């Protein structure tokens, strides 16, 4: 049994580390590319969202490398992700890629026992015993958390650094190192080194960079091809930003501590009182952090046709009209013309800068 799963940001790095540790092989699909996207969309249904098309291509390329079993997460809706596996199977079967499917469905759909059975199926070929597997899981979880801490720090320091581009460089170097690491211990070593070098970069404490919240649909937030590398672009522009959604956040919210997710759903949010599927509520709650923590603006990213995020966008539209909230919604599709995206982001940042300066002159904030 040769396993694979579709790419999602850096998930393949973590997956590789985990399976390596328990003595199994994971086939990693080729990186997302324009050609791959074209191949994926040529056999996908027409109105499906962007992640699906990329996943089709991922699974074809994994098939060509010899994979035969797909691990696919699924939910019980109402977002489209839950039905992805069903349609992926139909599309791929029709074109001769006859995979076996292991569907990691939510407990509410299949029950705990069935889920356990499916999880056991994944590690069937491994020689490790359960304590070793738990140890590996713990190790990978630490790697994810540490790497995300590093990314978080870099996103903030990119606005303050004296030598532009240093923080970006450190994160990218660390990511390359992790992708090559042969064990979890080595990965942790790489992370520690990167943390140290990020801590030692020169920082200009008097700078007042634009601070932004980056939020939106989970796939485009996590996958750098899906969002046209928006993070690196923002870092290049010398913007300090915070991203609310990441793989580690998702793991915390759904697997490690489902109660935390439950309570955050119950938390009162006057702009979106109920969870409507997807992560629209989390997107909208960015507004509270914007107000409390002195951010300058919000960037919301979503793939075209994403149903929950359209509701979030509508809420943002209303707020930007009524409450003067600076928010930029960027909708991504198969188009690769990056110039348009860059222009819009630049114009938004310029607008925020001007706004900030105006506020400074009015004496609302302390000026040095």
């Amino acid at each position, binding site marked *: 049994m040769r396993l694979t799963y579709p790419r999602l940001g850096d998930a393949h790095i973590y997956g590789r580390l985990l399976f390596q540790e328990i003595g199994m092989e994971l086939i990693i699909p080729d990186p997302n590319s324009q050609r791959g996207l074209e191949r994926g969309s040529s056999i996908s249904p027409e109105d499906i969202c962007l992640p699906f098309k990329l996943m089709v291509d991922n699974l074809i390329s994994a098939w060509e490398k010899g994979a035969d079993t797909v691990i696919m997460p699924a939910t019980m809706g109402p977002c489209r992700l839950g039905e992805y596996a069903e349609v992926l199977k139909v599309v791929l079967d029709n074109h001769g890629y006859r995979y076996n499917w292991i569907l990691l469905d939510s407990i509410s759909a299949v029950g705990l026992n069935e889920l356990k059975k499916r999880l056991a199926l994944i590690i069937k070929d491994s020689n490790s015993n359960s304590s070793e597997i738990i140890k590996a899981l713990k190790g990978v979880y630490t790697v994810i958390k540490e790497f995300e801490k590093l990314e978080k720090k870099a996103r903030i320091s990119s606005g303050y650094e004296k030598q532009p581009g240093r923080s970006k460089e450190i994160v990218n170097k660390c990511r390359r190192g992790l992708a090559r690491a042969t064990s979890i211990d080595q990965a942790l070593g790489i992370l520690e080194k990167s943390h140290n070098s990020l801590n030692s970069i020169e920082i200009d404490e008097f700078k007042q960079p634009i601070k932004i919240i980056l939020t939106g649909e989970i796939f485009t937030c996590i996958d750098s091809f899906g969002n046209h590398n928006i993070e690196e672009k923002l870092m290049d522009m010398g913007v300090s930003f915070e991203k609310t959604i990441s793989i580690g956040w998702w793991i915390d919210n759904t697997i490690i501590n489902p109660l935390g997710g439950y309570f955050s759903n119950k938390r009162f949010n006057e702009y979106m009182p109920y969870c409507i599927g997807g992560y629209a509520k989390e997107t909208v709650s960015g507004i509270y952090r914007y107000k409390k923590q002195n951010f300058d603006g919000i960037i919301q990213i979503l793939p075209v046709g994403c149903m929950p995020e359209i509701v979030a*966008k509508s809420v943002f539209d209303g707020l930007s009209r009524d409450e003067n909230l600076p928010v930029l919604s960027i909708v991504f599709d198969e188009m690769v013309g990056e110039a348009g995206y860059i222009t819009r982001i630049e114009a938004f940042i310029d607008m925020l800068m001007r706004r900030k300066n105006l506020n400074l002159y009015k004496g609302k904030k302390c000026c040095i």
Partner: protein
Amino acid sequence: MRIGIPEGLLFHRYERFIRCFFERLGVDVIYSGKTNRKILEEGIKSCVDEACLPIKVFHGHVSKLSKECDKIAVFRLMKCEYGESICPKFCGLPELVKSGTGEDNLVFTGPLYLNDKNKAKKAFIRDAKLLGIPAYKTSRAFESAYKELFSNKQKRDLDNKIVIALLGHPYNTKDSFINMNLIDKLKKMGVGIVTEEDVSEEDKLKQQTGLMKKPYWLFLRDNFGAASYLSEKKKIDGIIYLSSFCCGTDSITIEMIRNRIKDLPMLVLKLDEHTGEAGFNTRIEAFVELLERRKKHEANLS
């Protein structure tokens, strides 16, 4: 106090329930009436750009009502009567409408789980209390309206030469403005129409075998089940699927139906704000002609 009820989205599906409920409640109710061009234009103006046509039409209905009444009922349907969910936009409908039209007087916006009778009743009672309607009154109205949800739907007998299954979301298939009088047009051509309402619940459920997981959208379940059942029993000659442009759930439904029915002819009609009727007519006519020819050909062969 006058409550307005927009005749958009799932109003057509739950029409009997809604009418019965408000009649028993004894409040002054006004319905927004059938969709027309003015409503559509109002809707396009106020709605978020990325939304689909039915949502825009719904915004139009709300804008129309906001001039005529004090409160507008916008239901937040989380789960349907069989426990299926719908598109996420329905769960966030009050937010969508509020930020789109700027209308603040929305009522009955509590989350509705129609599959759980007590929960739904409580939600209605809570919402009605905000309007000053006592609980016993709401409870009585709800009890009598709830029966309507599961009451038998009408059966049609078909003696037409050609029978087509008209599938899609009820707000597309039943709103004659949105679908440009499709049903009348088909009837004029002498085509018999069946919809998913003609297929019983058990038959739909039986068709789910062979799927990896149980579908969780109402419209996926209804349309997929109906298409699969009707084609298996050879009751239809073709399928017309009405879908709105960029519909998230349909992108999946259509693919799954196509895979199930194999080579039964299926025409997918996409609806958007551009109501160019000529192109629409041509496609329907060509499709019906194709079915007629196919039928003749089959008759010759046998």
